[in-house]
């Protein structure tokens, strides 16, 4: 392969692709971006005014974060896949008074509230028709602490309809009425059943595992000010039915609704965002505020004052439904990241209609906190609670190798046939 990669022919192939991207997408984006440039520079971008390093907060607060990991291939038993899911919750105390900033609360206290950390789950399904959907629904029901499906689905409709739908009876005479029977079972909430590849199943399970861990934080006595998730607050919608195509969409809205009720700021931070022209926004911030300044930039949707940005007009999931994305950078050495907030919370707590200055003050206060929690030298610019949660939940190659060995042992212990646990390709040294 290497001899091909090193050829001029391969370089020529790449040259054509990049020229193509530049001619088509970049030119279009450039045109769109130029329409937004002034607005971004003058209205949407602003600096973070950080707390001084020796700040003493009047009220120290807790920051919680949840992250998950896993594999869709813990073990392959012919056509049966065993998935492994892990989640980790980290709770830190700003602790400005004792000078041990963002000190993790004791492991004992954490486990008393949330159970053992990190948490492991397994799931399996076979290749039998509909088995993936059925088993996934069963696992989701087991994983998520809220069991009543109606309670799970209603927050989405309530938020999406701006409060018009707040109970089952409100479905009458709506487009949703005909789908009501499907909305009563976890299995029928999976409306992308035809696309249930292993990866899709695994992603759904993993997302819901993380949401379940986050819900446990909200229902615990911990009372954090912030609850951070890894990723985005995006919901994948069914284009015909106009509601989430997977249970995780409903569950996320239920979680957001509970967070609002508990007075917890729910947000999701995404390093791997797909915000177009993020690098140009970063460059603009650097030009406007100077190098090294910490900044944020609101990415409004069409319903916000001033309307949506041209640059993201035709993007499918940006801005995400019922969420408000921002780009931010707290470290000049790193590329900007994205953070999503629950739109309903944002409308109630950040946006002040008709008062952009008050709105900006709210945003600045929010990002001031977020910046403060992102100064750990190991992951400077990224929220430390999320970084720690990531470290705690991640499954290394060695972890997985051992987990597979233990699978083999357990099968042997319970009298089942022992099989090789390595991926099948290993048999052929591939």
């Amino acid at each position, binding site marked *: 392969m290497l001899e091909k990669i090193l050829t001029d022919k391969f370089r020529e192939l790449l040259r054509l692709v990049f020229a193509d991207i530049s001619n088509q997408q970049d030119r279009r984006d450039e045109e769109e971006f130029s329409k937004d440039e002034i607005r971004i520079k003058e209205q949407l971008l602003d600096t973070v005014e950080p707390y001084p390093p020796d700040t003493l907060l009047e009220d120290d607060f807790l920051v919680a974060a949840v992250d998950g990991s896993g594999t869709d291939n813990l073990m392959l038993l012919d056509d049966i896949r065993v998935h492994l899911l892990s989640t980790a919750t980290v709770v830190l105390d700003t602790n400005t008074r004792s000078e041990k900033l*963002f*000190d993790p609360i004791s492991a004992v206290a954490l486990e008393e509230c949330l159970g053992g950390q990190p948490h492991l789950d397994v799931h399996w399904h076979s290749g039998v028709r509909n088995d993936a959907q059925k088993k996934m629904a069963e696992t989701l029901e087991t994983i998520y602490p809220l069991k009543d499906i109606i309670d799970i689905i209603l927050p989405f409709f309530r938020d999406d309809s701006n409060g018009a739908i707040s109970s089952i009876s409100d479905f009458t005479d709506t487009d949703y009425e005909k789908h009501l029977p499907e909305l009563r079972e976890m299995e029928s909430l999976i409306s992308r059943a035809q696309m249930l590849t292993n990866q899709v199943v695994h992603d759904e399970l993993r997302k819901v595992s993380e949401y379940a861990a986050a819900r446990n934080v909200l229902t615990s006595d911990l009372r954090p000010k912030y609850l951070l998730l890894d990723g985005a607050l995006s919901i994948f919608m069914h284009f015909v039915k106009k509601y989430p195509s997977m249970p995780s969409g409903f569950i996320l809205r239920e979680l957001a609704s509970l967070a609002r009720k508990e007075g917890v700021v729910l947000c999701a931070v995404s390093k791997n965002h797909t915000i177009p022209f993020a690098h140009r926004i970063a460059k603009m911030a650097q030009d406007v505020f100077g190098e090294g300044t910490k900044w944020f930039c609101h990415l409004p949707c069409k319903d916000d004052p001033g309307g949506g940005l041209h640059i993201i007009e035709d993007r499918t999931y940006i801005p995400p439904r019922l969420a408000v994305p921002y780009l931010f950078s707290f470290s000049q050495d790193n590329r900007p990241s994205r953070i999503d907030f629950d739109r309903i919370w944002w409308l109630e707590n950040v946006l002040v209609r008709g008062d952009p200055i008050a709105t900006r003050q709210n945003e600045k206060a929010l990002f001031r906190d977020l910046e403060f929690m992102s*100064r*750990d*030298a190991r992951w400077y610019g990224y929220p430390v609670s999320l970084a720690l949660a990531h470290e705690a939940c991640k499954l290394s190659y060695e972890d997985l190798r051992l987990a597979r060995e233990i699978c083999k042992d357990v099968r042997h212990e319970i009298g089942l046939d022992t099989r090789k646990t390595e991926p099948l390709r290993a048999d052929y040294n591939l």
Partner: protein
Amino acid sequence: MLDRDNLGELFGKVGVGNQTMLGIMGNNRDVSVGEIFMIYSQRDGHERVFFFRVLGLENYLRQVDDMARVAGTLMVEGDSYLSGIERNMLLSVNGRMLGYAEQRGDEWRFMSPRRLPDHLADVYRPIRGKSDEEVCRMLCTQTDGNVYVGDLQVGETTLDVPVMIPSKFLPMHVGIFGSTGAGKSNLMMVLIKSIIDSNLDYLHSPDDEDKRISAFCIDPHDEFAKGVDKYGIQSVIEAMDDGTRKKVINDFYYLTTHKKATPREIKRYTKEIRILWEEIRPRDLYSIMEFTPQMSSFIDSQFNLHRERWVKEILDMEKDPDGTPSGTLNAVQRRLRFLERSPIFIESGLSVLGEIFEAMESGRILVVNTSLMSDMEQFLLTTIVTRTLSDMRRALKSSGNLGDFERQGNMRLPQPFFTKVKTQAKAFYRKGGVGDDSEVRDPRALPVILVTVEEAPSILNPELMRGRSVFKDISRQGRKFNMGLLVVSQQVSVLDNVILSQMNTEINLRLGNEREIRACIENASVNISGFENEFRVMSRGEAILTASYREMPLPVKIPLFDTVFERDRDRYKGKGAKKSEKRVL
């Protein structure tokens, strides 16, 4: 079952490694190179405690792959912090497995490293005042003996675990290696005091012959008696009541060239070193300086002709005798002239050699001030004493009864000397009766005699050891006569292999350079490869004691002489006096 709490503080877990080298992940504590950790293991139901010596340390931060980047961020981003870092700050410790202790019945046995501790076994850091007793019990086979050297060192501190050398191994020679300022003089003083203590113990329990040790201690800087700081061997002597002193040193312990120049308090226990020319044998000179075959042949012929008068005869000759190559006489006379100038080697008068012999056969120490002697005088004195004592013991070993012994003595030793000491010698060597047919004792039932060879490379070098050196025989056969050399040297690399290979105990102090460190490691009686870094960071008074009869290289801190004297001074006051704390091993 062992009470693990007594091992010390729980420090960490065994990570990677094999039966020789281990990697331990431990708490972020102030650990130093050289510390000894204990690893508790219970593999297959076998309870064992492995001993591990720290050779290298590395800071380890969990969740950090690039420490330099984090340090850089802390520098550049002044507002940065490290959340909950304390629990992630670990110490990665690597080092050498020293061996393991295993209990068999009531006794602990110590084995060379030939097993591995269990997976993730707990690692304990010994604490002084808590772990001493347990460590002492587990290492008893590695630390017990009669001659106290120092305390077991664990890093920069010590445990109350005395490290001793058994007297029965002293005839297999002891090496003390260390550069200037490494603490050799203090160690010698501590050893002399330990020998006195052992002899005192013998006085209290005369059945234990092992405790009787004699030592002929060369003091090239005249500091043992007076001491370096506050106290010296003289303080020990003065702390004794008259009765004890008489038994321990009789009427002298200090030998010097000029008695008049000796401080008054020491003078009382002093004798002047005087050796008669007639007590010198040609071999004594062959052991300390090089002679051509013609010269040694000439000396031998003169010795055969004139026996004890050979030195005087040669020095008085005016021309080469017939058959002797021209110039030989001159060359030999040039080499012997220092005897004429020497105040200690005398043609006539009273010799002290007989009293030295008597002291050495009685279990006594002699401190020999050689500070005013030339190198050659010092070497010749050491040689004559060594050869005389070994020839006496050799004569004894070759005899079945006192009659045989007298014949052997007359044959092997200078006639006038033997005539003078034979009555006393027979008293030492007889088993019961006094008649010629009375049985003699085995030399191993007599006191161990230890002769110091200072500046050892000057006489224990390969050139002199190739010839008819007295020390070559002692190196090889000393154990038969219960007589050993205490070789003191700044260098190991220049010593002859005969003595190095026969040496069973080495006290390795701080060394001067890489070559000596390498030589010291190669010469050690147990494998101490990997200890190079240790030698580089050793402080004054710190040593690694290696012995072929022990499995574990023992890090030892030699206490200051003043400290041990102050601790033990009460024990010298005779019957009624309080005995110093008895160390139970």
